[in-house]
């Protein structure tokens, strides 16, 4: 859920989505020259990356991501 995937057949490596995300969820894989979802758990589902992507490569589900919460982590 939330940001689900970036379609690598479509992604042209322009990097616009990296700046679109105010939660810093997306970054560039410099080797592959593609955008990668680095911190999916912090996606706030605002959808800006999806609407900013010029080639329609990003898929964001309107639902929040469900994941387990730990009280004390290490």
């Amino acid at each position, binding site marked *: 859920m939330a940001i689900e995937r970036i379609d690598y057949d479509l992604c042209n490596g322009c990097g616009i989505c990296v700046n*679109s*995300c105010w939660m*810093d969820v997306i970054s560039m894989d410099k080797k592959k020259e593609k955008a990668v979802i680095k*911190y999916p758990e912090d996606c*706030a589902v605002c959808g800006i990356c999806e609407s900013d992507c010029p080639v329609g490569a990003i898929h964001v589900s309107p*639902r929040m991501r469900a994941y387990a*919460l730990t009280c004390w982590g*290490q």
Partner: protein
Amino acid sequence: MPSENVIEADVLIIGGGIAGLFAAIKAREEGVSVILVEKGYTSRTGSSLFCGGFSLFNPEWGHKLDEWMSQIAKTGDYFNNPEWTEITLKNSYDIYKDLQSWGVPFTDRDGAPPHRRGVLEAIRYGPGRIFLPLMREQAEKVGVRIIDRIMVTDLIKQEGRITGAVGFHTGSDDFFIFQAKATVMCTGGGGLGGHDPIESRLGAYDGEGMAYRAGAEISGKEFSLTGVGPFSYMGTGYGYYGDRKDDTRISIKGKEIKPVPVGYHPNAIDKYVDTEGNKVNRYTAVSAVHTGRGPIFLNTDDATPQEISSVLEEIKHWAGDEIQESGVDLVKGNLYSGAARFETYLGHQIEGAGAGLWSADTRGSTSLPGLFAAGDCYNSRAVGAKYPGGGMGSRNAAVIGAIAGRSAAEYSTKVGSMAIDRGELDKLKSNVYAPVERPGGFDADWVTVQLKSIMIPYHMWMIKHGDRLKAGLTLVEFLKNHVAPMMYARPRNGHGLRIVHEVKGRILSVEMMLRSALFRTESRGVHYREDYPRRDDEKWLALVKIRESEGKMELVKEPLPEKWWPDLSIPYAERYPLEFLGEEPVRSST
């Protein structure tokens, strides 16, 4: 340890939304050097991204200043600062022209260029993701230096004035030291969102927390805006519940019905009725359920099939799959499925004036020399104890941002730059990075959930009571004193660090809210105390200021200047036409 960068400027702007961009552009136009730092990416950040309306006061359209002023004062239960209100109205046309000259498109409701809006009716210029890049472009054009992905954590105070700030880069983890002659805080408001920890991401009250720790006064916290919604996006103030009062045809039943007390929002649509047939809106729905008049129905009696389907489409757009999964039959109503699912959508402070740094004058000053502020983190009180109409938050952020930017530029020409003490820097740096160094700790998202579980139920912030506020405060103090200092950064870098510092800020801000709400023993605007269900003009024509005193939160009453008081000679019921739940006995006897 991460590497250090020292950056000097005449004026430092913290935050890259509408207020910050206006402050930066106007300060730079005065000829001083300006740095703007932003936690996300300037033009892709904050609640500015989601705003759409612009409240343009335009005498050419027959707008009358008295009429607007009186409506804003009445809606806000006379708690606005009329001087700021007048400035924001009168300056709105210049700001509108500025934005137009930078290429920002404005439209009227019919999609045509703005031509005919009435009293307190906004024109459209959003969403922010369209116009913010144009503002960023203008800032860069005039020579503002923008540094993105910097989270500022602390202000520097030397010899009684603010001389800069420190923070870190969320990508490289580097430590940043900003030496500035004047600083403008434009960090926005905050919120706690719905049940999910992620829904709290937008708005972290960063600015008021760091200003408070530096000794600044904070005010208006008891009026932190609330909404209510059983579903993630319902009642957030954005989208669905926006300025859609044109839709009332769908909602009004074919017979005369008595409005429910506590009519909080003039723009609230009346699509909903309680089981007794009373109209309710997003605020009164809570009172209805609280007093056993739930559930709330979506009334479609007079609607055409097209109208129903357009409303349903909109609800589905905002509430997504949750509606379907919950099994709620929308056409029959039952949209609010009862108190069990009532959530307070905790104040996004979208008022652009409602709560935050104390406004010391009408130049964007705060209570600290060298520190200015604008936007949702600044309690200008351009609007009062209740948000009066669409498009005022962003308009006020722009107008006051421009003023604060100019004031900061002027101030910077009168003072010298001051090198920041090394010992102080080392102390701050070690505090900032402590959550990364910790081998383990409380998880920041888990802490957020605990905070939400205290604040989100309707009985804490929508319908307040002294006993419950005290209980909430006890738990929030525990989070602040015991849990927050043991949070760790996950991941162990600038990204994880940002979230930890945001959660710390939210806890502090919630403490300010609870203390202010307890302190104000009356009801006013969006502040409703079940145990004090009426405005108390004898005791409470006063504001609440918060400041740090010997490590403790101190609250003081600041009397409202008498020239801004309501006319006390007119009967209470006329002075305050909107009735609070439980106010009836005192109301009729006064």
